[in-house]
Protein backbone atom coordinates (compact mmCIF):
# COMPACT_ATOMS: atom_id res chain seq x y z
CA UNK A 1 0.00 0.00 0.00
CA UNK A 2 2.87 2.36 0.61
CA UNK A 3 4.72 1.79 -2.60
CA UNK A 4 2.10 3.17 -4.98
CA UNK A 5 1.20 6.18 -2.84
CA UNK A 6 4.85 7.22 -2.73
CA UNK A 7 5.28 7.13 -6.47
CA UNK A 8 5.13 10.52 -8.14
CA UNK A 9 2.66 9.50 -10.87
CA UNK A 10 0.42 7.88 -8.22
CA UNK A 11 -1.61 5.99 -10.81
CA UNK A 12 -0.08 2.71 -11.82
CA UNK A 13 0.36 2.65 -15.57
CA UNK A 14 -0.36 -1.03 -15.75
CA UNK A 15 -3.70 -0.76 -13.93
CA UNK A 16 -5.93 -0.45 -16.97
CA UNK A 17 -4.17 -3.10 -19.07
CA UNK A 18 -4.25 -5.52 -16.12
CA UNK A 19 -7.92 -4.88 -15.37
CA UNK A 20 -8.97 -5.18 -18.98
CA UNK A 21 -6.95 -8.37 -19.49
CA UNK A 22 -8.20 -9.94 -16.26
CA UNK A 23 -11.81 -9.17 -17.10
CA UNK A 24 -11.41 -10.48 -20.64
CA UNK A 25 -9.70 -13.69 -19.50
CA UNK A 26 -12.34 -14.33 -16.82
CA UNK A 27 -15.10 -13.59 -19.31
CA UNK A 28 -13.75 -16.15 -21.74
CA UNK A 29 -13.15 -18.65 -18.93
CA UNK A 30 -16.73 -18.10 -17.85
CA UNK A 31 -17.86 -19.03 -21.36
CA UNK A 32 -15.63 -22.06 -21.42
CA UNK A 33 -15.83 -23.59 -17.96
CA UNK A 34 -18.78 -25.50 -16.55
CA UNK A 35 -20.25 -29.01 -16.60
CA UNK A 36 -19.16 -29.08 -20.24
CA UNK A 37 -15.85 -27.59 -21.26
CA UNK A 38 -16.68 -25.74 -24.43
CA UNK A 39 -14.02 -25.78 -27.15
CA UNK A 40 -14.59 -22.19 -28.22
CA UNK A 41 -12.08 -22.33 -31.05
CA UNK A 42 -13.39 -25.60 -32.49
CA UNK A 43 -16.91 -24.27 -32.25
CA UNK A 44 -16.11 -21.16 -34.28
CA UNK A 45 -14.20 -23.17 -36.89
CA UNK A 46 -16.91 -25.82 -37.08
CA UNK A 47 -14.78 -28.66 -35.74
CA UNK A 48 -16.72 -29.35 -32.61
CA UNK A 49 -18.19 -32.62 -33.84
CA UNK A 50 -21.51 -34.23 -33.07
CA UNK A 51 -22.25 -32.21 -29.96
CA UNK A 52 -21.72 -28.90 -31.76
CA UNK A 53 -25.37 -27.90 -31.77
CA UNK A 54 -25.82 -28.55 -28.05
CA UNK A 55 -22.56 -26.83 -27.15
CA UNK A 56 -23.49 -23.84 -29.28
CA UNK A 57 -26.86 -23.66 -27.54
CA UNK A 58 -25.22 -23.83 -24.12
CA UNK A 59 -22.73 -21.16 -25.11
CA UNK A 60 -25.27 -18.80 -26.65
CA UNK A 61 -28.22 -19.21 -24.31
CA UNK A 62 -26.68 -20.10 -20.93
CA UNK A 63 -23.01 -19.14 -20.62
CA UNK A 64 -23.10 -15.89 -22.58
CA UNK A 65 -26.04 -14.29 -20.75
CA UNK A 66 -24.55 -15.48 -17.46
CA UNK A 67 -21.17 -13.88 -18.19
CA UNK A 68 -22.80 -10.66 -19.41
CA UNK A 69 -24.91 -10.51 -16.27
CA UNK A 70 -21.80 -11.02 -14.14
CA UNK A 71 -20.22 -8.01 -15.87
CA UNK A 72 -23.33 -5.86 -15.43
CA UNK A 73 -24.05 -6.84 -11.83
CA UNK A 74 -20.40 -6.88 -10.71
CA UNK A 75 -19.65 -3.66 -12.55
CA UNK A 76 -22.67 -1.98 -11.01
CA UNK A 77 -21.76 -3.05 -7.49
CA UNK A 78 -18.10 -2.00 -7.89
CA UNK A 79 -19.08 1.31 -9.43
CA UNK A 80 -21.69 2.11 -6.80
CA UNK A 81 -19.26 1.12 -4.04
CA UNK A 82 -16.60 3.53 -5.33
CA UNK A 83 -19.08 6.37 -5.84
CA UNK A 84 -20.81 5.92 -2.46
CA UNK A 85 -17.44 5.78 -0.70
CA UNK A 86 -16.40 8.97 -2.45
CA UNK A 87 -19.66 10.77 -1.71
CA UNK A 88 -19.87 9.69 1.93
CA UNK A 89 -16.07 9.88 2.38
CA UNK A 90 -16.23 6.51 4.07
CA UNK A 91 -14.45 3.33 2.98
CA UNK A 92 -17.25 1.15 4.36
CA UNK A 93 -20.01 2.58 2.18
CA UNK A 94 -21.35 0.14 -0.42
CA UNK A 95 -24.78 -0.93 -1.70
CA UNK A 96 -24.79 -4.17 0.34
CA UNK A 97 -23.76 -2.83 3.75
CA UNK A 98 -25.95 0.26 3.35
CA UNK A 99 -29.01 -1.87 2.67
CA UNK A 100 -29.71 -0.67 -0.89
CA UNK A 101 -29.30 -4.22 -2.24
CA UNK A 102 -31.53 -5.91 0.31
CA UNK A 103 -34.16 -3.20 -0.07
CA UNK A 104 -33.97 -3.77 -3.83
CA UNK A 105 -34.46 -7.50 -3.29
CA UNK A 106 -37.51 -6.70 -1.15
CA UNK A 107 -39.00 -4.60 -3.94
CA UNK A 108 -38.40 -7.34 -6.50
CA UNK A 109 -39.86 -10.01 -4.20
CA UNK A 110 -43.06 -8.05 -3.66
CA UNK A 111 -43.50 -7.52 -7.38
CA UNK A 112 -42.58 -11.06 -8.43
CA UNK A 113 -44.48 -13.16 -5.93
CA UNK A 114 -47.62 -11.12 -5.90
CA UNK A 115 -48.17 -11.39 -9.60
CA UNK A 116 -47.26 -7.92 -10.90
CA UNK A 117 -44.20 -9.14 -12.78
CA UNK A 118 -46.25 -11.30 -15.11
CA UNK A 119 -48.89 -8.68 -15.90
CA UNK A 120 -46.97 -5.40 -16.05
CA UNK A 121 -43.93 -5.13 -18.34
CA UNK A 122 -40.72 -4.07 -16.56
CA UNK A 123 -42.48 -4.44 -13.21
CA UNK A 124 -39.69 -6.65 -11.87
CA UNK A 125 -36.79 -4.19 -12.32
CA UNK A 126 -39.09 -1.32 -11.35
CA UNK A 127 -39.88 -3.10 -8.09
CA UNK A 128 -36.15 -3.61 -7.47
CA UNK A 129 -35.43 0.03 -8.29
CA UNK A 130 -38.22 1.32 -6.07
CA UNK A 131 -36.85 -0.81 -3.23
CA UNK A 132 -33.23 0.20 -3.73
CA UNK A 133 -34.15 3.88 -3.98
CA UNK A 134 -36.19 3.65 -0.78
CA UNK A 135 -33.25 1.96 0.95
CA UNK A 136 -30.65 4.48 -0.16
CA UNK A 137 -32.89 7.48 0.56
CA UNK A 138 -33.55 6.05 4.02
CA UNK A 139 -29.79 5.78 4.56
CA UNK A 140 -29.20 9.36 3.43
CA UNK A 141 -31.96 10.45 5.76
CA UNK A 142 -30.69 8.43 8.75
CA UNK A 143 -26.97 9.08 8.33
CA UNK A 144 -26.24 11.00 5.16
CA UNK A 145 -23.19 12.96 4.13
CA UNK A 146 -20.76 13.86 6.84
CA UNK A 147 -21.99 11.13 9.16
CA UNK A 148 -19.37 9.19 11.09
CA UNK A 149 -18.61 5.71 9.76
CA UNK A 150 -20.25 4.13 12.79
CA UNK A 151 -23.50 6.04 12.24
CA UNK A 152 -23.54 5.00 8.61
CA UNK A 153 -22.94 1.34 9.41
CA UNK A 154 -25.63 1.34 12.10
CA UNK A 155 -28.09 2.91 9.69
CA UNK A 156 -27.14 0.20 7.20
CA UNK A 157 -27.74 -2.50 9.80
CA UNK A 158 -31.17 -1.02 10.48
CA UNK A 159 -32.16 -0.86 6.81
CA UNK A 160 -30.73 -4.32 6.12
CA UNK A 161 -32.57 -6.03 8.94
CA UNK A 162 -35.83 -4.26 8.15
CA UNK A 163 -35.58 -5.17 4.47
CA UNK A 164 -34.63 -8.76 5.34
CA UNK A 165 -37.58 -9.16 7.69
CA UNK A 166 -40.01 -7.65 5.20
CA UNK A 167 -38.64 -9.93 2.46
CA UNK A 168 -39.27 -12.98 4.64
CA UNK A 169 -42.75 -11.65 5.40
CA UNK A 170 -43.52 -10.99 1.73
CA UNK A 171 -42.37 -14.50 0.82
CA UNK A 172 -44.45 -16.02 3.61
CA UNK A 173 -47.54 -14.18 2.45
CA UNK A 174 -46.90 -15.05 -1.19
CA UNK A 175 -49.47 -17.40 -2.70
CA UNK A 176 -46.85 -19.68 -4.21
CA UNK A 177 -45.87 -22.65 -2.01
CA UNK A 178 -42.30 -22.35 -3.31
CA UNK A 179 -41.85 -18.74 -2.23
CA UNK A 180 -40.50 -19.30 1.25
CA UNK A 181 -37.88 -21.77 -0.03
CA UNK A 182 -36.63 -19.22 -2.54
CA UNK A 183 -35.53 -16.75 0.14
CA UNK A 184 -32.05 -18.22 -0.24
CA UNK A 185 -31.85 -16.87 -3.77
CA UNK A 186 -32.86 -13.37 -2.70
CA UNK A 187 -30.54 -13.30 0.33
CA UNK A 188 -27.47 -14.84 -1.29
CA UNK A 189 -27.91 -14.29 -5.00
CA UNK A 190 -27.11 -16.45 -7.98
CA UNK A 191 -26.53 -16.16 -11.70
CA UNK A 192 -27.21 -19.83 -12.41
CA UNK A 193 -29.38 -20.55 -15.46
CA UNK A 194 -30.29 -16.94 -16.11
CA UNK A 195 -31.09 -16.07 -19.70
CA UNK A 196 -30.99 -13.17 -22.13
CA UNK A 197 -34.44 -12.29 -20.80
CA UNK A 198 -32.65 -11.20 -17.64
CA UNK A 199 -29.93 -9.38 -19.57
CA UNK A 200 -32.67 -7.44 -21.32
CA UNK A 201 -34.20 -6.53 -17.95
CA UNK A 202 -30.93 -5.07 -16.65
CA UNK A 203 -29.52 -3.51 -19.81
CA UNK A 204 -31.61 -0.32 -20.11
CA UNK A 205 -30.97 0.60 -16.48
CA UNK A 206 -27.25 -0.06 -16.73
CA UNK A 207 -27.15 2.11 -19.87
CA UNK A 208 -29.01 4.81 -17.96
CA UNK A 209 -27.13 4.60 -14.66
CA UNK A 210 -23.52 3.84 -15.55
CA UNK A 211 -22.93 7.07 -17.54
CA UNK A 212 -24.20 9.08 -14.57
CA UNK A 213 -21.89 7.24 -12.17
CA UNK A 214 -18.88 7.35 -14.48
CA UNK A 215 -19.05 11.14 -14.83
CA UNK A 216 -18.95 11.92 -11.11
CA UNK A 217 -15.18 11.89 -11.03
CA UNK A 218 -14.54 15.60 -10.48
CA UNK A 219 -17.01 16.30 -7.65
CA UNK A 220 -15.78 13.19 -5.86
CA UNK A 221 -12.20 14.45 -6.19
CA UNK A 222 -13.26 17.78 -4.73
CA UNK A 223 -14.81 15.99 -1.75
CA UNK A 224 -11.34 14.75 -0.74
CA UNK A 225 -10.98 17.97 1.26
CA UNK A 226 -14.44 17.90 2.80
CA UNK A 227 -17.80 19.29 1.86
CA UNK A 228 -17.03 22.97 2.42
CA UNK A 229 -14.02 22.93 0.13
CA UNK A 230 -15.94 20.97 -2.49
CA UNK A 231 -18.75 23.54 -2.35
CA UNK A 232 -16.28 26.40 -2.49
CA UNK A 233 -14.77 24.83 -5.60
CA UNK A 234 -18.15 25.31 -7.27
CA UNK A 235 -19.70 21.85 -6.92
CA UNK A 236 -23.35 21.58 -5.95
CA UNK A 237 -23.39 18.75 -3.43
CA UNK A 238 -27.17 18.40 -3.28
CA UNK A 239 -27.15 17.90 -7.00
CA UNK A 240 -24.31 15.40 -6.66
CA UNK A 241 -26.13 13.46 -3.98
CA UNK A 242 -29.30 13.39 -6.07
CA UNK A 243 -27.39 11.93 -9.02
CA UNK A 244 -25.68 9.30 -6.84
CA UNK A 245 -28.95 8.24 -5.20
CA UNK A 246 -30.78 8.05 -8.52
CA UNK A 247 -28.07 6.17 -10.40
CA UNK A 248 -27.40 3.77 -7.52
CA UNK A 249 -31.10 3.04 -7.15
CA UNK A 250 -31.57 2.44 -10.89
CA UNK A 251 -28.58 0.15 -11.39
CA UNK A 252 -28.52 -1.73 -8.08
CA UNK A 253 -32.30 -2.17 -8.07
CA UNK A 254 -32.39 -3.58 -11.60
CA UNK A 255 -29.42 -5.88 -10.97
CA UNK A 256 -30.73 -7.25 -7.67
CA UNK A 257 -34.09 -8.00 -9.29
CA UNK A 258 -32.43 -10.62 -11.52
CA UNK A 259 -29.46 -11.77 -9.43
CA UNK A 260 -30.60 -11.52 -5.82
CA UNK A 261 -28.53 -9.76 -3.18
CA UNK A 262 -24.80 -10.28 -3.71
CA UNK A 263 -22.81 -8.68 -0.90
CA UNK A 264 -19.37 -7.17 -0.39
CA UNK A 265 -18.44 -6.58 -4.04
CA UNK A 266 -18.83 -2.83 -3.63
CA UNK A 267 -16.68 -2.97 -0.49
CA UNK A 268 -13.88 -5.17 -1.81
CA UNK A 269 -13.28 -3.71 -5.25
CA UNK A 270 -12.67 -0.05 -4.33
CA UNK A 271 -10.59 -1.11 -1.35
CA UNK A 272 -8.33 -3.32 -3.45
CA UNK A 273 -7.94 -0.78 -6.25
CA UNK A 274 -7.53 2.37 -4.16
CA UNK A 275 -3.75 2.13 -3.61
CA UNK A 276 -3.23 1.72 -7.35
CA UNK A 277 -4.96 4.99 -8.19
CA UNK A 278 -3.10 6.93 -5.51
CA UNK A 279 -6.14 6.78 -3.16
CA UNK A 280 -7.80 9.21 -5.50
CA UNK A 281 -11.60 8.98 -5.11
CA UNK A 282 -12.28 10.23 -8.63
CA UNK A 283 -9.82 8.06 -10.47
CA UNK A 284 -11.12 5.08 -8.51
CA UNK A 285 -14.56 5.17 -10.16
CA UNK A 286 -14.00 3.77 -13.64
CA UNK A 287 -11.53 1.02 -12.64
CA UNK A 288 -14.00 -0.11 -9.96
CA UNK A 289 -16.54 -0.94 -12.67
CA UNK A 290 -14.06 -3.24 -14.39
CA UNK A 291 -12.79 -4.59 -11.08
CA UNK A 292 -16.34 -5.42 -9.99
CA UNK A 293 -17.01 -7.18 -13.28
CA UNK A 294 -13.80 -9.22 -12.93
CA UNK A 295 -14.51 -10.07 -9.30
CA UNK A 296 -18.03 -11.31 -9.99
CA UNK A 297 -16.94 -13.27 -13.06
CA UNK A 298 -14.30 -14.93 -10.89
CA UNK A 299 -16.68 -15.57 -7.98
CA UNK A 300 -19.25 -17.03 -10.36
CA UNK A 301 -16.58 -19.35 -11.77
CA UNK A 302 -15.82 -20.51 -8.22
CA UNK A 303 -19.49 -21.37 -7.64
CA UNK A 304 -19.24 -23.78 -10.54
CA UNK A 305 -16.10 -25.44 -9.23
CA UNK A 306 -16.44 -29.22 -9.57
CA UNK A 307 -14.76 -29.60 -6.17
CA UNK A 308 -17.95 -28.35 -4.55
CA UNK A 309 -20.26 -30.74 -6.37
CA UNK A 310 -23.48 -28.79 -6.22
CA UNK A 311 -23.46 -25.17 -7.32
CA UNK A 312 -22.77 -22.70 -4.55
CA UNK A 313 -24.76 -19.50 -4.16
CA UNK A 314 -22.82 -16.51 -5.46
CA UNK A 315 -23.32 -14.48 -2.30
CA UNK A 316 -21.64 -17.22 -0.30
CA UNK A 317 -18.44 -16.82 -2.32
CA UNK A 318 -18.44 -13.02 -2.20
CA UNK A 319 -19.13 -13.07 1.54
CA UNK A 320 -16.32 -15.57 2.15
CA UNK A 321 -13.97 -13.22 0.29
CA UNK A 322 -15.45 -9.97 1.52
CA UNK A 323 -16.22 -10.52 5.18
CA UNK A 324 -12.56 -10.96 6.23
CA UNK A 325 -11.74 -7.76 4.34
CA UNK A 326 -14.60 -6.02 6.11
CA UNK A 327 -13.17 -7.11 9.47
CA UNK A 328 -9.74 -5.92 8.39
CA UNK A 329 -11.18 -2.51 7.48
CA UNK A 330 -13.05 -2.29 10.78
CA UNK A 331 -9.84 -3.08 12.63
CA UNK A 332 -8.04 -0.24 10.90
CA UNK A 333 -10.92 2.16 11.29
CA UNK A 334 -11.69 1.34 14.91
CA UNK A 335 -10.24 4.59 16.22
CA UNK A 336 -12.36 6.61 13.85
CA UNK A 337 -15.39 4.49 14.57
CA UNK A 338 -15.44 5.00 18.31
Amino acid at each position, binding site marked *: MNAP*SQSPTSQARWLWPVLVTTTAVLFIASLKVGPASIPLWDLTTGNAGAEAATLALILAEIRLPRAILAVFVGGTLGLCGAVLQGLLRNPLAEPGLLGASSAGALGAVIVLYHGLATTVPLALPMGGIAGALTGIILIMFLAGRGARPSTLILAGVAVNSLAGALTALALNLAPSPFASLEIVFWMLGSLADRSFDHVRIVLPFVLLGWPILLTL*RRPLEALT*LGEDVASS*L*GFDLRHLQLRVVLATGLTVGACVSVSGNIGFVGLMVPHLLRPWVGH*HPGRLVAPSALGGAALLLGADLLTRSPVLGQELKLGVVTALLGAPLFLHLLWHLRRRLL
Partner: protein
Amino acid sequence: MSLEATAINLAIGGRAILIDASVRVDTGRVIGLLGPNGAGKSTLLRSLAGLEPSVAGKRTLDGVTAPPRANREWACRVAYLPQTGDLSWPVTVREVVTLGRLPHHAGPWGSQSAQDRAIVDLAMKHADVTLLANRPADALSGGERARVMLARALATEADYLLADEPIAGLDPGHQLQVMELLRARAGAGMGLLVVLHDLTLACRYCDMVVLLQAGRVVAQGRPLEVLNPDNLANVFGVRVLAANTPDGPIRVPVARLPEDVR
Protein backbone atom coordinates in the same frame (compact mmCIF):
# COMPACT_ATOMS: atom_id res chain seq x y z
CA MET B 1 -11.79 45.85 -7.17
CA SER B 2 -13.44 44.38 -4.11
CA LEU B 3 -15.40 41.56 -2.60
CA GLU B 4 -18.11 42.89 -0.40
CA ALA B 5 -20.84 41.72 1.91
CA THR B 6 -23.43 44.24 3.02
CA ALA B 7 -25.96 43.95 5.86
CA ILE B 8 -25.67 40.17 6.19
CA ASN B 9 -28.31 38.59 8.44
CA LEU B 10 -28.32 34.93 9.28
CA ALA B 11 -30.20 32.93 11.87
CA ILE B 12 -29.67 29.26 12.60
CA GLY B 13 -32.38 27.49 14.55
CA GLY B 14 -34.02 30.78 15.49
CA ARG B 15 -30.82 32.18 16.95
CA ALA B 16 -29.36 35.19 15.18
CA ILE B 17 -25.75 34.48 14.23
CA LEU B 18 -25.09 37.54 12.08
CA ILE B 19 -26.90 40.87 12.43
CA ASP B 20 -26.39 43.49 9.73
CA ALA B 21 -22.78 42.48 9.37
CA SER B 22 -20.83 44.10 6.55
CA VAL B 23 -17.29 43.50 5.43
CA ARG B 24 -15.27 44.56 2.43
CA VAL B 25 -12.12 42.97 1.01
CA ASP B 26 -10.03 44.97 -1.45
CA THR B 27 -7.45 43.42 -3.71
CA GLY B 28 -3.92 43.79 -2.46
CA ARG B 29 -4.99 44.04 1.17
CA VAL B 30 -5.06 41.72 4.17
CA ILE B 31 -8.21 42.18 6.27
CA GLY B 32 -8.23 40.60 9.72
CA LEU B 33 -11.54 39.33 11.11
CA LEU B 34 -11.41 39.20 14.90
CA GLY B 35 -13.84 38.53 17.69
CA PRO B 36 -14.49 36.17 20.58
CA ASN B 37 -15.52 32.57 20.07
CA GLY B 38 -19.07 32.36 18.79
CA ALA B 39 -19.12 35.95 17.53
CA GLY B 40 -19.92 34.69 14.01
CA LYS B 41 -16.53 35.10 12.32
CA SER B 42 -16.56 31.72 10.56
CA THR B 43 -20.21 32.16 9.58
CA LEU B 44 -19.50 35.57 8.10
CA LEU B 45 -16.59 34.11 6.15
CA ARG B 46 -18.72 31.21 4.88
CA SER B 47 -21.56 33.58 3.98
CA LEU B 48 -19.22 35.68 1.95
CA ALA B 49 -17.83 32.54 0.29
CA GLY B 50 -21.33 31.46 -0.79
CA LEU B 51 -21.48 28.41 1.48
CA GLU B 52 -24.41 29.47 3.68
CA PRO B 53 -27.62 28.81 1.80
CA SER B 54 -30.11 30.81 3.88
CA VAL B 55 -28.40 34.13 4.15
CA ALA B 56 -30.06 37.53 3.81
CA GLY B 57 -28.09 40.51 2.61
CA LYS B 58 -26.10 41.60 -0.38
CA ARG B 59 -22.88 40.13 -1.68
CA THR B 60 -21.04 41.68 -4.57
CA LEU B 61 -17.88 40.78 -6.45
CA ASP B 62 -16.32 43.75 -8.17
CA GLY B 63 -19.68 45.50 -7.95
CA VAL B 64 -21.63 42.64 -9.53
CA THR B 65 -24.18 40.74 -7.43
CA ALA B 66 -22.74 37.39 -6.41
CA PRO B 67 -24.53 34.07 -7.08
CA PRO B 68 -26.34 32.70 -3.99
CA ARG B 69 -24.13 29.59 -4.01
CA ALA B 70 -20.54 29.24 -5.05
CA ASN B 71 -20.48 28.11 -8.67
CA ARG B 72 -17.59 27.33 -10.99
CA GLU B 73 -17.00 30.92 -12.14
CA TRP B 74 -17.19 32.18 -8.59
CA ALA B 75 -14.79 29.46 -7.48
CA CYS B 76 -12.21 30.74 -9.98
CA ARG B 77 -12.36 34.20 -8.37
CA VAL B 78 -12.87 33.46 -4.67
CA ALA B 79 -10.99 30.78 -2.75
CA TYR B 80 -12.02 29.46 0.66
CA LEU B 81 -9.70 27.88 3.18
CA PRO B 82 -11.56 26.21 6.05
CA GLN B 83 -10.17 25.88 9.52
CA THR B 84 -10.27 22.08 9.65
CA GLY B 85 -7.92 20.60 7.13
CA ASP B 86 -10.29 17.72 6.38
CA LEU B 87 -8.67 14.99 4.33
CA SER B 88 -10.67 11.86 3.51
CA TRP B 89 -8.08 9.88 1.56
CA PRO B 90 -4.29 9.67 1.81
CA VAL B 91 -3.55 11.32 -1.54
CA THR B 92 -0.21 13.03 -2.20
CA VAL B 93 0.47 16.69 -1.50
CA ARG B 94 0.63 17.43 -5.21
CA GLU B 95 -2.79 15.82 -5.70
CA VAL B 96 -4.24 17.96 -2.92
CA VAL B 97 -2.84 21.15 -4.41
CA THR B 98 -4.02 20.13 -7.89
CA LEU B 99 -7.62 20.02 -6.58
CA GLY B 100 -7.41 23.83 -6.68
CA ARG B 101 -7.47 23.62 -10.48
CA LEU B 102 -10.87 21.85 -10.56
CA PRO B 103 -13.02 24.96 -11.14
CA HIS B 104 -10.95 25.92 -14.18
CA HIS B 105 -12.21 22.95 -16.16
CA ALA B 106 -15.73 22.36 -17.36
CA GLY B 107 -17.17 18.94 -18.14
CA PRO B 108 -16.83 15.65 -16.34
CA TRP B 109 -13.26 14.77 -17.29
CA GLY B 110 -11.05 17.92 -17.52
CA SER B 111 -7.49 16.74 -17.73
CA GLN B 112 -4.61 18.86 -16.56
CA SER B 113 -2.69 20.99 -18.98
CA ALA B 114 0.96 21.92 -18.74
CA GLN B 115 -0.23 25.33 -17.62
CA ASP B 116 -2.15 23.75 -14.74
CA ARG B 117 0.96 21.89 -13.65
CA ALA B 118 2.97 25.10 -13.76
CA ILE B 119 0.38 26.89 -11.63
CA VAL B 120 0.37 24.04 -9.12
CA ASP B 121 4.18 24.17 -8.95
CA LEU B 122 4.03 27.90 -8.33
CA ALA B 123 1.36 27.56 -5.64
CA MET B 124 3.47 24.92 -3.89
CA LYS B 125 6.48 27.23 -4.14
CA HIS B 126 4.54 30.18 -2.69
CA ALA B 127 3.33 28.03 0.21
CA ASP B 128 6.78 26.48 0.65
CA VAL B 129 5.64 22.88 0.19
CA THR B 130 7.51 22.00 -3.01
CA LEU B 131 9.67 19.50 -1.18
CA LEU B 132 6.59 17.71 0.17
CA ALA B 133 5.02 17.24 -3.26
CA ASN B 134 5.12 13.43 -3.33
CA ARG B 135 4.39 12.81 0.34
CA PRO B 136 0.99 11.41 1.35
CA ALA B 137 -0.89 14.41 2.69
CA ASP B 138 -2.17 12.55 5.74
CA ALA B 139 1.35 11.99 7.06
CA LEU B 140 2.32 15.65 7.55
CA SER B 141 2.89 17.76 10.62
CA GLY B 142 0.37 20.47 11.51
CA GLY B 143 2.47 23.22 10.02
CA GLU B 144 3.12 21.34 6.82
CA ARG B 145 -0.53 20.47 6.47
CA ALA B 146 -1.65 24.08 6.96
CA ARG B 147 0.73 25.20 4.21
CA VAL B 148 -0.44 22.40 1.89
CA MET B 149 -4.05 23.50 2.35
CA LEU B 150 -2.97 27.08 1.68
CA ALA B 151 -1.17 25.96 -1.48
CA ARG B 152 -4.39 24.24 -2.61
CA ALA B 153 -6.28 27.52 -2.13
CA LEU B 154 -3.57 29.46 -3.96
CA ALA B 155 -3.70 27.03 -6.89
CA THR B 156 -7.19 28.27 -7.73
CA GLU B 157 -5.49 31.56 -8.74
CA ALA B 158 -8.42 33.36 -7.17
CA ASP B 159 -8.36 37.13 -6.69
CA TYR B 160 -9.70 36.75 -3.16
CA LEU B 161 -8.89 34.31 -0.41
CA LEU B 162 -11.13 33.76 2.60
CA ALA B 163 -9.07 31.97 5.24
CA ASP B 164 -10.55 30.68 8.50
CA GLU B 165 -7.91 30.66 11.26
CA PRO B 166 -5.08 29.57 8.98
CA ILE B 167 -2.58 29.65 11.86
CA ALA B 168 -4.66 27.89 14.52
CA GLY B 169 -2.69 25.14 16.16
CA LEU B 170 0.65 26.17 14.69
CA ASP B 171 3.79 26.87 16.66
CA PRO B 172 5.06 30.50 16.70
CA GLY B 173 7.57 29.93 13.91
CA HIS B 174 4.99 28.42 11.60
CA GLN B 175 2.48 31.12 12.54
CA LEU B 176 4.88 33.78 11.37
CA GLN B 177 5.69 31.79 8.26
CA VAL B 178 2.06 31.47 7.21
CA MET B 179 1.36 35.14 7.94
CA GLU B 180 4.33 36.10 5.81
CA LEU B 181 3.06 33.89 2.99
CA LEU B 182 -0.35 35.57 3.18
CA ARG B 183 1.23 39.02 3.25
CA ALA B 184 3.27 38.13 0.18
CA ARG B 185 0.09 37.09 -1.70
CA ALA B 186 -1.46 40.44 -0.88
CA GLY B 187 1.68 42.03 -2.23
CA ALA B 188 1.04 40.13 -5.45
CA GLY B 189 -2.44 41.64 -5.71
CA MET B 190 -4.64 39.19 -3.85
CA GLY B 191 -7.37 40.32 -1.47
CA LEU B 192 -7.43 38.37 1.78
CA LEU B 193 -9.93 38.07 4.60
CA VAL B 194 -8.32 36.19 7.47
CA VAL B 195 -9.92 35.07 10.72
CA LEU B 196 -7.35 35.52 13.48
CA HIS B 197 -7.12 35.26 17.25
CA ASP B 198 -3.60 36.58 17.68
CA LEU B 199 -3.85 40.31 18.36
CA THR B 200 -0.15 41.01 17.80
CA LEU B 201 -0.07 39.24 14.43
CA ALA B 202 -3.26 41.07 13.44
CA CYS B 203 -1.54 44.38 14.23
CA ARG B 204 1.53 43.49 12.24
CA TYR B 205 0.18 41.74 9.16
CA CYS B 206 -3.26 43.21 8.54
CA ASP B 207 -4.01 46.38 6.58
CA MET B 208 -7.35 46.55 8.28
CA VAL B 209 -9.22 44.66 10.96
CA VAL B 210 -12.93 44.06 11.51
CA LEU B 211 -14.03 43.40 15.06
CA LEU B 212 -17.10 41.19 15.46
CA GLN B 213 -19.15 40.75 18.61
CA ALA B 214 -22.34 38.70 18.95
CA GLY B 215 -22.94 38.80 15.22
CA ARG B 216 -22.43 42.55 14.81
CA VAL B 217 -19.48 44.50 13.49
CA VAL B 218 -18.51 46.70 16.41
CA ALA B 219 -15.41 48.34 14.96
CA GLN B 220 -13.32 48.37 11.84
CA GLY B 221 -10.33 50.28 10.60
CA ARG B 222 -6.59 50.31 10.96
CA PRO B 223 -5.38 47.60 13.36
CA LEU B 224 -3.75 49.89 15.88
CA GLU B 225 -6.87 52.09 16.06
CA VAL B 226 -9.39 49.23 16.30
CA LEU B 227 -7.37 47.00 18.61
CA ASN B 228 -7.12 49.62 21.37
CA PRO B 229 -7.36 48.64 25.01
CA ASP B 230 -10.95 49.91 25.31
CA ASN B 231 -12.27 47.88 22.38
CA LEU B 232 -10.37 44.80 23.52
CA ALA B 233 -11.76 45.16 27.02
CA ASN B 234 -15.31 45.53 25.70
CA VAL B 235 -15.17 42.75 23.13
CA PHE B 236 -12.88 40.14 24.69
CA GLY B 237 -13.11 41.12 28.35
CA VAL B 238 -9.34 41.25 28.73
CA ARG B 239 -6.75 43.78 29.74
CA VAL B 240 -3.90 43.90 27.24
CA LEU B 241 -0.33 44.94 27.38
CA ALA B 242 0.04 47.28 24.40
CA ALA B 243 3.45 48.49 23.39
CA ASN B 244 5.52 49.57 20.45
CA THR B 245 8.80 47.75 20.10
CA PRO B 246 11.59 48.14 17.57
CA ASP B 247 10.10 45.07 15.86
CA GLY B 248 6.61 46.56 15.68
CA PRO B 249 3.54 46.86 17.90
CA ILE B 250 2.53 44.14 20.34
CA ARG B 251 -0.84 43.40 22.00
CA VAL B 252 -0.58 40.76 24.70
CA PRO B 253 -3.61 39.86 26.85
CA VAL B 254 -2.50 39.81 30.48
CA ALA B 255 -5.66 39.59 32.62
CA ARG B 256 -9.36 38.80 32.46
CA LEU B 257 -11.56 41.69 33.51
CA PRO B 258 -14.47 41.26 35.92
CA GLU B 259 -17.93 41.43 34.29
CA ASP B 260 -18.89 44.92 35.53
CA VAL B 261 -15.80 46.68 34.21
CA ARG B 262 -16.29 45.59 30.58
